[in-house]
C-alpha cells in the first residue's frame, strides 16, 4: 500500500517536472537562439522549432527542401527560392516553384529522393506527421525543422525562423512588417462592427468544418467573423449536418478554387435552404489563401473581410 502510494506520488512528481520542463522549453521557444563558431566548419546555429525541438542548422543554409506548400511559399516570398532544392507535388506557388525537383507529396515524400538531393535542412509542417521519417533524416545528418503555425502570429514566426535559416533575416522582417500592416488595416476596418456568424465548409460530402485548432479560425476572427464552430475540438472535425443548420450561420465560406479546382464550390444540401444561402451570403474564397498558413493568408484575410463587411471597405 505504502509503496503504491509512493509510486503514485513519484509518478505525480515526475509528471509535474516534465510539464514544467516542457513549459520552460515552450517559453524559451522561438527567440532563444545561440550561435557557435566551430574552428573549421561553417557556423551552426541552434533554433527551437514549433515541435519544441532544438535543431542545429548551418547558417546560412544553402540547400533546403520544403515538404509543405505554405513553407515553399514562405521560402520564395523572402527571396530565397534559389536555395530550394526540393518541394512536394502540392507546392505549386509561385510558378517558379514548379521548376524545383518534386520529392513526393506532403504525406508520402520519397526518402531516397530527399537524401539524394543532399539538403542541409528539411522544412516540414506538423500536419505531415513524419516522426519515423524525421529520425531517418537525422541519421543522415540532415536537420529537420518542424513548423506548426496555429494563427497569423505563428505564420510570422515561421517566416522569421525560415529567414534565420536561409540568412535572409532582412527580407523576412520586411515581409513580416508588410503583412502586419495589411493585417492591421483589415482589423482597423472591421473594428467595432458586429462579427458575422460564419460557417466554414471545408467539404460538403461528408461535411467537414474548421474547429478550434484550425489556422483559419483565427483568420476568420481577425476578418470580423465569428466561426460557429470555433469551439469544436480539433482542427478539421467531421461535423453534424443538423448542428450546422441549427447554428443559423449568417454567412457560409467555401474555400474553393486554386489548387482545389471546382471542388467544394456548392453549399452542402443541409444548408442549401439556410437563411445564409437564401440571402446569397455564400462566399467562395481561394482555398490556397485560407488553408496554407503562409504569406498569402493575408490575401485570404482581406478577401474574407471584404466579403463579410463590404461597407467597411467603401472609399
Amino acid at each position, binding site marked *: 500500500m505504502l509503496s503504491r502510494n509512493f509510486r503514485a506520488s513519484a509518478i505525480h512528481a515526475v509528471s509535474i517536472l516534465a510539464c514544467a520542463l516542457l513549459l520552460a522549453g515552450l517559453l524559451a521557444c522561438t527567440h532563444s537562439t545561440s550561435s557557435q563558431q566551430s574552428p573549421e566548419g561553417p557556423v551552426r546555429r541552434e533554433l527551437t522549432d514549433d515541435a519544441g525541438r532544438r535543431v542545429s542548422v548551418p547558417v546560412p543554409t544553402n540547400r533546403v527542401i520544403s515538404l509543405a506548400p505554405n513553407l515553399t511559399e514562405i521560402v520564395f516570398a523572402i527571396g530565397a527560392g534559389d536555395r530550394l532544392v526540393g518541394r512536394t507535388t*502540392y507546392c505549386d506557388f509561385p510558378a517558379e516553384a514548379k521548376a524545383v525537383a518534386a520529392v513526393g507529396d506532403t504525406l508520402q515524400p520519397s526518402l531516397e529522393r530527399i537524401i539524394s538531393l543532399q539538403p542541409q535542412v528539411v522544412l516540414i509542417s506538423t500536419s505531415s506527421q513524419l516522426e519515423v521519417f524525421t529520425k531517418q533524416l537525422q541519421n543522415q545528418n540532415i536537420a529537420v525543422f518542424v513548423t506548426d503555425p496555429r494563427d497569423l502570429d505563428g505564420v510570422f514566426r515561421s517566416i522569421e525562423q525560415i529567414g534565420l535559416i536561409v540568412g535572409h533575416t532582412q527580407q523576412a522582417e520586411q515581409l513580416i512588417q508588410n503583412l502586419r500592416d495589411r493585417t492591421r488595416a483589415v482589423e482597423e476596418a472591421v473594428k467595432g462592427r458586429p462579427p458575422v456568424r460564419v460557417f466554414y465548409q471545408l467539404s460538403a460530402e*461528408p461535411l467537414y468544418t474548421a474547429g478550434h485548432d484550425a489556422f483559419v479560425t483565427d483568420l476568420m476572427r481577425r476578418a470580423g467573423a465569428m466561426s460557429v464552430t470555433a469551439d469544436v475540438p480539433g482542427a478539421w472535425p467531421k461535423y*453534424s449536418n443538423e448542428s450546422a443548420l*441549427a447554428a443559423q450561420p449568417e454567412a457560409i465560406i467555401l474555400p474553393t478554387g486554386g489548387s482545389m479546382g471546382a471542388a467544394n464550390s456548392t453549399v452542402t444540401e443541409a444548408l442549401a435552404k439556410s437563411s445564409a444561402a437564401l440571402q446569397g451570403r455564400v462566399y467562395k474564397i481561394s482555398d490556397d489563401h485560407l488553408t496554407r498558413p503562409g504569406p498569402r493568408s493575408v490575401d485570404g484575410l482581406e478577401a474574407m473581410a471584404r466579403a463579410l463587411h463590404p461597407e467597411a471597405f467603401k472609399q
Partner: protein
Amino acid sequence: MSITASGFVNSTSRQNRVTLRKTLISCLALFAALLLSIVLMSLIGSEALPVRDSLCALATFGASSCGLSQDQFDILFQIRLPRILLAAAVGGSLATAGAGYQALLRNPLAEPYLLGISNGAAVGTMIALVFFGTNEWTRPLLAFTGALVATLAVYRLARGRAGATPERLILAGVIVTTFLSSVIVFVTTLMDATRIRSFTFWLLGDLSGSSKALLPVAITIAVAGTLALTLNARSLNLLMLGERDAFDLGVEVGRVRVVVFVVASLLVGSSVAASGSVGYVGLVVPHLARLSLGSDNRISIPAAALLGALFVIVADTIARTIIAPRELPVGAITALIGAPLFIYLLKRA
C-alpha cells in the same frame, strides 16, 4: 454455425403453412420494431428537438409543423429522417445480400466483404466520382457493375474441376478483396489531395454525406432485392444440401445462382454507392436471424433484412451523437458492435 437443411426436403403443405405463419409473425414483429426505432431514433441527434412537437409532426408525416421552428422542422424531415431511412435501406440491403451469399455458397462466412464484392462496388463508385462527379445516378450504376464484376471474378476463380468448393470460394474472395483494396489505395494516391477526404468516406462507411437523390433508389432496391431472394428461399434451402442434390430435387441451380449473384450485387452496389463500405452487417445480422429464428431461408432472409435495417439505424444514431456535434463514420460503430457480437455467436454455436 453450420447451416443445415434437414427437414426442408420433405416439407409438406401443412409444414409450409406453419412456416408461412411463423414468417409472417416474426416479420411483422420485426417490422413493428423497425418502425418504432425509426421514430425513436429520429428524436435523438446532436441538436435537441422538442419531443412532443416532433412526435406530432412525425404523426402527420410532416404535413403539420406542430410548433417546430422552420430549422427544427428541416432538421427532422430534411436531415435526420432521410438519413435514418437510408440507414435502414443500407442495413437491409447488406444483411439480405449476406444471407443470400451464405445460403447459395453454403458458407457461413460468405459476406460482401470477404468475397470482395463491397470493394468492387467501392471501385465502381470511385470511378463514378472521378469521371461523372456531378451525375449522382452513375454511382449506384457503376457500383452495381463493380459488385457484379467482382462477384463473377470470385466465382470464376473459385471454380475448379470439382466445382466451386466453399473453401476455394473464400480464398478467391480474399484474392479479389486484396487486389481491389490495392486498386482503391492506388486511385486514392493518384487523386488530388483535396479529394482524398471524400474517398476515405467510401472506405470507412458513412451515412452523413450521401445525397438525398439516392434514397429512393436505395429503398427500392432494398425492398425488391429482399423480395426476390425470399421468393428463391425454398431453392436456397434445397441448395444447402449441395448443388448436385438440389439439382436432383428439381432446383434450377444455374438460374438460382444467377438470381442471387445479380440481386446481391444490386443490393451491395446501391448501399456502397450511398454510404461507402459499412462492415460486419452482412456477416453478423444473418447469423443473428438464423440463431433466433432457425435456418429456414424463407424466414431468415426477410428477418435478416429487417434486423439489418434496425442494426444500422441504431449504429448510425450512436455514430452521429456520441461525440456530437462531431461525428464518427457508421462503419466504425458497426465494426465495434459487430466484431465482439460475432465472437460471441461463434463461441455459442
